[in-house]
């Protein structure tokens, strides 16, 4: 128990420090003499505690300094996928990034995720992203008669696609992919993850329909194994692995 007592000292202690956030802002309305759509950097200083996350700092800014700062968030613990943003040039969830892990001595840069149209401050238009997801037919397509009880599936078969079921559609992966940055037509890693989840589900029989879609010009072959997606995924999904498995299914003809 002593170890815990020490640990909890840290948790309870109110050791606070000041951090500077440098935020890339985007003003769609063109207020205060700016052009509509103007982009500019703005710095804020925030008092923070050891357990504070970037989201807490953004809230501190919004709630105490500048109410016009706009960003999306909901769950605040990394399960809803609302708040993917570029923090210190890496895509992360603001609610899962602890300030103390970011070297608070230097200003923390916060930008919207790249490759999707910015709407306001850190809010981007997610529609193209969701459109790619919809394109890969992300729903079970079983064939044969519907059973009365559940479809059976062995734990091993269930395990095959476990990793990709974790996706929260946060877009951190897709918007970190250098291929997606230059070619927005690319379905992006998320859509492949979404397809993988069904392609390798033993209950699904639509795998070749999806593979067909991913075999497209804008599909899985666009991936250059840059691994940014894997590094960005806040759910720890091995995105590049999923992509590779899809490529392998396409080259070998076997799922």
């Amino acid at each position: 128990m002593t170890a815990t007592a020490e640990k909890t000292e840290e948790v309870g202690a109110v050791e606070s420090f000041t951090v500077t956030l440098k935020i890339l802002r985007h003003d769609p309305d063109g207020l205060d003499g700016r052009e509509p759509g103007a982009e500019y950097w703005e710095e804020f200083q925030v008092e923070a505690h050891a357990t504070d996350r970037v989201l807490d700092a953004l809230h501190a800014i919004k709630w105490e300094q500048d109410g016009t700062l706009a960003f999306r968030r909901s769950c605040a613990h990394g399960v809803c996928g609302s708040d993917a943003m570029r923090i210190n040039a890496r895509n992360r969830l603001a609610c899962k990034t602890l300030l103390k892990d970011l070297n608070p001595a230097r200003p923390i840069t916060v930008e919207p995720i790249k490759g999707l149209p910015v709407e306001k401050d850190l809010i981007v238009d997610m529609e193209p992203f969701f459109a790619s997801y919809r394109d890969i037919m992300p729903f079970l397509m079983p064939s044969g008669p519907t059973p009365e009880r559940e479809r059976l599936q062995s734990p091993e078969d269930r395990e095959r696609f476990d990793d990709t079921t974790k996706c929260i559609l946060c877009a951190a992966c897709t918007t970190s992919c250098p291929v997606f940055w230059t070619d927005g037509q690319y379905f992006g890693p998320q859509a492949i993850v979404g397809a993988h989840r069904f392609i390798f589900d033993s209950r699904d029989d639509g795998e070749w329909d999806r593979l067909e879609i991913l075999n497209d010009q804008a599909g899985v072959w666009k991936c250059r194994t840059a691994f940014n997606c894997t590094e960005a995924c806040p759910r720890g999904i091995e995105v590049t692995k999923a992509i590779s498995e899809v490529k392998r299914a396409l080259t070998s003809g076997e799922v």
Partner: protein
Amino acid sequence: MTAPELTAPRRPMNRRTVGGAERWSWIFQRVSGVVLIVLIFTHLFVNLLTGDGVSQIDFAFVAGKWASPLWQWWDFVMLVLAMMHGTNGMRMLVNDYATRPFVRAMLHWALRISMIVIIVLGSLVIWTFDPCPTDAAGELLEGVPSFCESVL
């Protein structure tokens, strides 16, 4: 509990899927890459590291090599594969960066033409190569390999 056994047949790959251009290009990139590694490294090794290295390269050196069909084939395969691999790679690059359809089409054509020109030119050179060219008077030109003399 009448759940049927799950022996859902894995649908075999259908024709359309087999023919994805992007898929073949991806496979080709890998296969040609592996072959090229052997070809190019031997090429570089022979040309640059054996003997006198880069300074040995002259007409005679080349002529000496191409006198043997092995090296003719070697360089030919290397040329074709490298050009195709390179052009295909460049094509992927163009697809990534050139978003305007017209620009993209132009660049694709430029690539295709340059590939064909280079391959045709290169193969002509390799196959029609005459290690002992003579001038109009039938004299050997300067710089030809020494074995030409015995041929005459």
